[in-house]
């Protein structure tokens, strides 16, 4: 029985115990097996062939796709294996746009790293790069097909973590490529900008959009006051770009570096996270009292918000109307700073430093005349700017945030972790801390989840039914469960990225879960080190309410709250069904998108067409099937001329059609 869990790696006895595959066993034995397409959090794909090993009696096999068996005899780096790995890399490099010197991924590129490690010194094959123009259509991400090595990591991340599938393989053989549907731009399809594709990409085929130059330009402009805000998750990750351990809290060094770069004031997004807690908890209390729009769903994560807007129009009233902390702080800065500094509002530039790519889209979609946030830089971009300025980050003496928006409680800090928003709201519900006496503040039961966790927590005699979710695929399964079983929740927190914002795509490149866990631990430590842990204890939050938000009617509402709208998944698509030849035609559009289709829009469309045929009206109408009127709540949606019909029936549609045709004729 002794030999049950024993196999032999390069002749040395190694035990295994429940590992997913041979690759994991070998890595545990301290042998680094090269891979492109293997991520422990994603399904096994077996495409890159770099992880192959020699198994006695079975030959060369990809270790990611083989289960460990007792007695296996494995060789990991024979000449044959080394040669094959090198050839695989050479072939990939022959297809690759090798402009490494000007590539932003250069220092963290897995292709470059493995080529160096495995000793690829020349490429014997003819270069076959096609020079395809990169896709800049997204606000958050840039796709450069010339850098793609077809490992499929991005395809699986989008499908398996987010359940979206915005990109996939297309074509076959030597023509195969990863692209959105119909090779449209990422900005024109259902992509929610979470950037998890970029996080797992071994090369620069998908990267967060870089906006350093635009921010440099603002910093160079003497008329502008450039203000920064830093999200919680940035401080525990930026060190990774400067050989500092992940999880170390570097808020002081970041502040110092930003001041050296020319930022006038540096604030903490954790302050506005406290503000979010205040508003969101009040909202929860109101909804519970009124028993309306429950469960309340968090709205801090812009990828989740876009996802809900595209796929769950029926839940948009459940989303908290609170802006995200980033937008709240931007709005508060632009409201208060012009007066206190006696400068024009348009001369204030708010730059937020975020672990997130979707925040770029969130700031961009704000269509007010003065945007709450002008630029969003990822942790990676801030690291690049610090390097561009030649600042020795690791040696910097820490500096403190500026007041008052640099002062936060621990509740605002843990926002960067999955479960953090929930815990912060629960802490609020416990009530204010009296005379420095700290009642229980930690809710460890909402921490460390595997993507989906349902918890019931009793506070002051009330039971709060909450769910904490990360990964939009998990959100989808939770919502399906709610629909099917009618299970009741009071509060649901959703974050798109694994582990929450600490695992965001704007963070320094890392391919392992451990780094992410260290970052999460860093945030909980930062919480512990602060004196205050509940948002309502923050004296500067109280001051802000007294001096600004509670003054003037609806001030808090205008500055801190937002609205949501149904959003089309794919822009600019419709099917022309009847095209009238008459001089004057009436446009009839019938929505056949998911929500309206379920409500019977196809049936109405068929009946309308039959009616038009019977009455011989085909010359005076243009009938089209469209995919979304962005009015899914009131489906089926039909528009006839300028009139939009909600909850349409065939009778309503035909009556309106006749009336509109009459109007049109009378005009002629």
């Amino acid at each position, binding site marked *: 029985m002794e030999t049950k869990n024993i196999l032999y790696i390069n002749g040395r006895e190694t035990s295994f115990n429940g590992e997913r595959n041979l690759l994991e066993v070998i890595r545990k034995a301290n042998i680094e097996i090269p891979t492109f397409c293997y991520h422990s959090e994603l399904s096994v794909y077996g495409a890159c062939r770099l992880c192959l090993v020699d198994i006695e009696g079975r030959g060369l096999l990809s270790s990611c796709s083989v289960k460990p068996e007792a007695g296996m005899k494995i060789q990991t780096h024979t000449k044959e294996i080394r040669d094959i790995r090198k050839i695989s890399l050479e072939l990939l490099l022959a297809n690759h746009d090798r402009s490494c010197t000007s590539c932003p991924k250069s220092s963290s590129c897995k292709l470059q790293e493995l080529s160096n490690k495995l000793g690829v010194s020349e490429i014997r094959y003819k270069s076959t790069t096609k020079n395809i123009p990169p896709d800049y259509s997204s606000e958050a991400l840039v796709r450069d097909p010339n850098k793609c090595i077809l490992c499929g990591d991005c395809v699986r991340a989008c499908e398996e973590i987010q359940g979206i599938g915005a990109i996939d393989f297309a074509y076959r053989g030597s023509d195969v490529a990863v692209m959105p549907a*119909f090779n449209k731009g990422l900005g024109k399809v259902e992509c929610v900008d979470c950037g998890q594709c970029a996080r797992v990409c071994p090369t620069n085929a998908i990267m967060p959009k870089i906006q350093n130059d635009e921010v440099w330009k603002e910093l160079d402009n003497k008329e502008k006051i450039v203000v920064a805000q830093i999200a919680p998750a940035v401080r525990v990750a930026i060190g990774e770009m400067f050989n500092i351990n992940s999880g170390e809290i570097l808020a002081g060094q970041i502040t110092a570096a930003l001041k050296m770069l020319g930022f006038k004031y540096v604030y903490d997004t954790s302050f506005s996270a406290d503000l979010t807690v205040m508003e969101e908890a009040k909202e929860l209390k109101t909804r519970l009292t009124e028993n309306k729009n429950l469960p309340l769903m968090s709205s801090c994560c812009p990828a989740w918000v876009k996802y809900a807007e595209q796929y769950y129009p029926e839940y948009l009233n459940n989303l908290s109307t609170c802006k995200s902390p980033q937008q709240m702080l931007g709005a508060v800065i632009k409201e208060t700073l012009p007066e206190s500094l006696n400068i024009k509002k348009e001369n204030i530039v708010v730059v937020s430093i975020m672990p997130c790519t979707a925040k770029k889209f969130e700031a961009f979609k704000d269509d007010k005349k003065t945007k709450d946030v002008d630029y969003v830089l990822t942790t990676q971009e801030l690291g690049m700017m610090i390097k561009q300025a030649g600042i020795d980050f690791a040696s910097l003496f820490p500096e403190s945030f500026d007041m008052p928006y640099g002062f936060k409680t621990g509740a605002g800090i843990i926002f960067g972790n999955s479960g953090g928003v929930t815990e912060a709201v629960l802490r609020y519900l416990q009530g204010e801390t009296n005379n420095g006496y700290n009642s229980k503040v930690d809710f460890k039961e909402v921490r460390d989840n595997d993507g989906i966790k349902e918890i019931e927590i009793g506070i002051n005699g009330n039971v709060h039914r909450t769910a904490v979710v990360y990964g939009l695929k998990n959100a989808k399964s939770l919502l399906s469960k709610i629909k099917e079983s009618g299970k009741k929740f009071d509060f649901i927190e959703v974050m798109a990225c694994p582990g929450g914002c600490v695992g965001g795509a704007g963070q320094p490149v890392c391919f392992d879960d451990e780094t992410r866990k260290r970052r999460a631990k860093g945030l909980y430590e930062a919480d512990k080190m602060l004196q205050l842990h509940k948002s309502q204890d923050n004296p500067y939050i109280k001051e802000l309410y007294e001096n600004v938000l509670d003054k003037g009617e609806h001030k808090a509402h205008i500055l801190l709250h937002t609205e949501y709208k149904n959003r089309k998944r794919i822009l600019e698509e419709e*099917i022309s069904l*009847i095209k009238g030849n008459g001089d004057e035609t009436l446009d009839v559009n019938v929505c056949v998108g998911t929500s309206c289709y379920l409500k019977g829009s196809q049936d109405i469309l068929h009946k309308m067409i039959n009616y038009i045929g019977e009455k011989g009206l085909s010359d005076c109408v243009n009938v089209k099937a469209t995919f979304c009127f962005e009015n899914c709540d009131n489906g089926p949606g039909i528009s006839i001329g300028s009139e939009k019909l909600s909850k349409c029936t065939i009778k309503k549609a035909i009556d309106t059609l006749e009336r509109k045709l009459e109007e049109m004729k009378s005009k002629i």
Partner: protein
Amino acid sequence: MSDKQFLNARKFSKVCEIMEKHSYSANKLIPILQEVQEEYRYLPEEVLIFIAISLDLSPARVYGVATFYSHFALKPKGKYIIRVCDGTACHVKNSHKIIDAIKKRLNVTEEKNTTADMLFTLETVSCLGACGIAPVVVINETVHPLMTPEKINTAIDQIYETEEVNELSN
């Protein structure tokens, strides 16, 4: 509803029928695409998106399947699809001369393989499994054995004649 104006509306109804027949099952994507292509003679982008939404698949996945199989066309094809076999047997029996003759006659190329009047599309296939009668050309469903450049020109002439008669009778 035989009116020409209702052609698209009729096709769209057919797409709904086809999906209903397959119970809107994502597993039936390929047969659905095959049947839809028979209606339109190709797979229009907006119809593929409609199918994706109806089957609860991502449009990128449907596009991936539609581009993987050479049977599926994303650009409109002609009324007559001329498939010239260029497999080993046909190739050694000068199938390339037939291909050249068609290209010259119809003014088409590999990239632009459909005639401007949408009557013909030229395709080459790897093997039709009819090597005994090589070189082989298949026009829609009709097999033409032992082809020569002269014979293919005659076949094209005949199609033009049929089309003219149809046009006149309409």
